[in-house]
């Protein structure tokens, strides 16, 4: 496929990795966080870690919307779906995410709730139009990439004067999450993630541009390289980060220039601003309550807000206490450090959401990375 195959050239990736190995100063350790689940997936799937020299380490970030959604919001969605008049429309990613007491949307569907998997938020509007007797609720989730499509669907529902369409909004913002990772001054030392730079969001940046990272890079003196999701994009971004570190720079650079403009997509930004406003605070799995980190519908669009229409009252809910997703999402632990990993927790029976989404760090490691662990372990045994 054009614009995909040419960015998956293994020989070129090995050559760039050789340049990284040459330029990474021996005796210095480089630790970079890839923000997005899309990057995590590319790194695992294409074995990028195997190409990098041992002193260049990648840690996974919180950029997987399914993974950072707190359990309580899934519980709320299940309660909405159990209402007899409601049809809950959701992206398939959310179906198997564990809720409280072993529940999930998939189990709720099996128990009779009207839950439908859709490809596009537009499908939910069309269902509302063709089934006027149903109250159609769209379970909206995602970073800035996905928010414009939700905004356009709400605009469309308004133009069609639909009274049976609403949105359960869980859209979150990337810059506050990057801030939460970097702003560790008040945390105890063991909880600080010390990274030398970020592989910055890809498709989020097509919408918001590169300027939102400029203040963060300057304030915390960490380079950010916005990068695409293909393996060559990631490898090139890592080289750009190594060079910035070597030169003592902390700039925002754009590797994904074929898709990302500095100012982003202004039309999409206007659509978002028309319909959404900032929540004072929102809970993130792993990162806790973050101020001004999520969106809700403006008062002028209240009729499309499922939380208001159905009086959604948040009920606090805790994760499985043994699940280490929180530390994995902050880059403090790797998936295999969790004692549930690969024992009771696997993609078939996930205990935490990082094992559900293919972009989740645990699912990516389960699908691709664990074979490397096994090879390493047997190499150690052979030496002993």
């Amino acid at each position: 496929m054009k614009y995909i195959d040419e960015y998956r050239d293994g020989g070129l990736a090995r050559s760039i990795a050789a340049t990284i190995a040459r330029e990474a100063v021996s005796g210095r350790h480089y630790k970079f966080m890839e923000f997005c689940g899309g990057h995590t997936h590319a790194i695992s799937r294409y074995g990028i870690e195997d190409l990098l020299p041992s002193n260049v380490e990648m840690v996974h970030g919180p950029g997987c919307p399914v993974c950072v959604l707190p359990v309580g919001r899934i519980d709320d969605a299940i309660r909405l779906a159990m209402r007899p008049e409601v049809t809950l429309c959701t992206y398939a990613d959310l179906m198997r995410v564990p809720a409280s007491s072993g529940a999930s949307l998939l189990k709720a569907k099996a128990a009779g709730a009207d839950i439908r998997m859709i490809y596009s938020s537009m499908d939910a509007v069309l269902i509302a139009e063709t089934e006027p007797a149903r109250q159609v609720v769209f379970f909206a989730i995602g970073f800035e990439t996905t928010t414009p499509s939700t905004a356009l669907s709400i605009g469309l529902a308004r133009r069609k004067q639909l009274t049976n369409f609403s949105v359960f909004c869980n859209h979150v913002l990337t810059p506050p999450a990057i801030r939460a990772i970097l702003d560790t001054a008040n945390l105890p030392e063991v909880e600080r993630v010390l990274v030398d730079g970020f592989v910055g969001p890809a498709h989020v940046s097509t919408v918001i541009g590169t300027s939102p990272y400029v203040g963060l890079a300057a304030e915390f003196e960490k380079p950010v390289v916005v990068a695409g999701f293909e393996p060559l994009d990631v490898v090139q971004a890592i080289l750009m980060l190594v060079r910035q570190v070597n030169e003592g720079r902390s700039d925002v650079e754009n590797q994904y220039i074929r898709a990302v403009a500095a100012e982003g997509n202004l039309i999409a930004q206007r659509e978002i601003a028309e319909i959404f406003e900032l929540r004072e605070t929102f809970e993130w799995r792993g990162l806790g309550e973050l101020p001004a980190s999520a969106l809700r519908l403006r008062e002028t669009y209240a009729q499309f807000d499922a939380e208001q229409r159905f009086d959604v009252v948040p009920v606090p809910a805790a994760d499985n206490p043994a699940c280490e997703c929180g530390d994995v999402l902050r880059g403090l632990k790797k998936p295999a450090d969790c004692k549930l990993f690969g024992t009771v927790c696997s993609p078939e029976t996930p205990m935490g959401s990082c094992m559900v989404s293919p972009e989740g760090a645990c699912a990516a490691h389960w699908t691709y990375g664990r074979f490397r662990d096994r090879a390493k372990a047997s190499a150690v045994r052979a030496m002993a």
Partner: protein
Amino acid sequence: MCLAIPIRVEALLPDQMARVTLRVGDYVLLHVGYALTRLDPDEAERTLALMREAAVPGLPTMKEAAA
């Protein structure tokens, strides 16, 4: 979740909510049924040129290895 794929525009239909000028033959990044942005063919080629520049000379690329 943020998955998007490069898709070639084959035809422009009415009521597609497009407010940018797209031409048949352009490539866009498609995410949950919506175009996020138009891909810039010149920048795409420039990125590949920079990648080749960053590569150590001597190691074959995929195409060269296949030839």
